[in-house]
């Protein structure tokens, strides 16, 4: 099992999705709480970059 699978297995997904915002620099998702992630440049796909 990979890191992402391990991480996902720790989550309680019984929450509804209240809001999603995709900004230039950040992405935010509101479920039980608000979570952030860095937005990634448009058009880039996994496998075409290494870092």
């Amino acid at each position, binding site marked *: 099992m990979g890191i992402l699978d391990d991480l996902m297995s*720790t989550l309680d997904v019984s929450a509804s999705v209240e809001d999603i915002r995709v900004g230039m*620099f950040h992405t935010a998702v509101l479920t039980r709480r608000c*979570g952030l992630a860095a937005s990634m440049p448009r058009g880039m796909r996994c496998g075409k970059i290494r870092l």
Partner: protein
Amino acid sequence: MREPGFLTDRSTEELVRLACSDSLLEAAVGMATINSLLEVDLDGCVELNAAELILQKGEGRNVAVVGHFPFLPQVREKAQRLWVIEKNPQAGDFPEAVADALIPQADVVAMTGTALTNHTLEHLLALCSPRAYVMLLGDTAPLSPVFFEYGVDAVCGTVVIDSEMALRCVSQGATFRQIRGTKRLALEKQG
């Protein structure tokens, strides 16, 4: 992004699975969903930003940083050597092609949490020396002890303390330094 405008109709589980998507936009939604669901052990975290921890661990040592972070000039002053590895290198940075050669030489390795979004984290971790102090950092980095099983020593991430403010900042193009309603925390491996 598939089905923009209808993402909130999808289940939380579906959004979590987007973290595995080949589309970086979708994978970012997946990572943000993971961070929204994570039960962060706040008592196990310390209020410390990534720059402070890198300066603490990297003084007089060889430091590799994957991603161009704003605090790097301070690290450059303290570290013996600093290698900044960046996909779009700025002056003094190294291109990603040399990551495989530089990371194994580093005593301290700090890598951006976006390595989860683009699915390169496992490769980067495999490059780290077993003796290296390894950090995962940035808003994407989930404050989870799961990473300690994979050789990470500390996660420097973000928790949102004011959702309304954070959402507004995201919508209005806030950068890493501009976003408000958040707290920067570090979770360090014990023992």
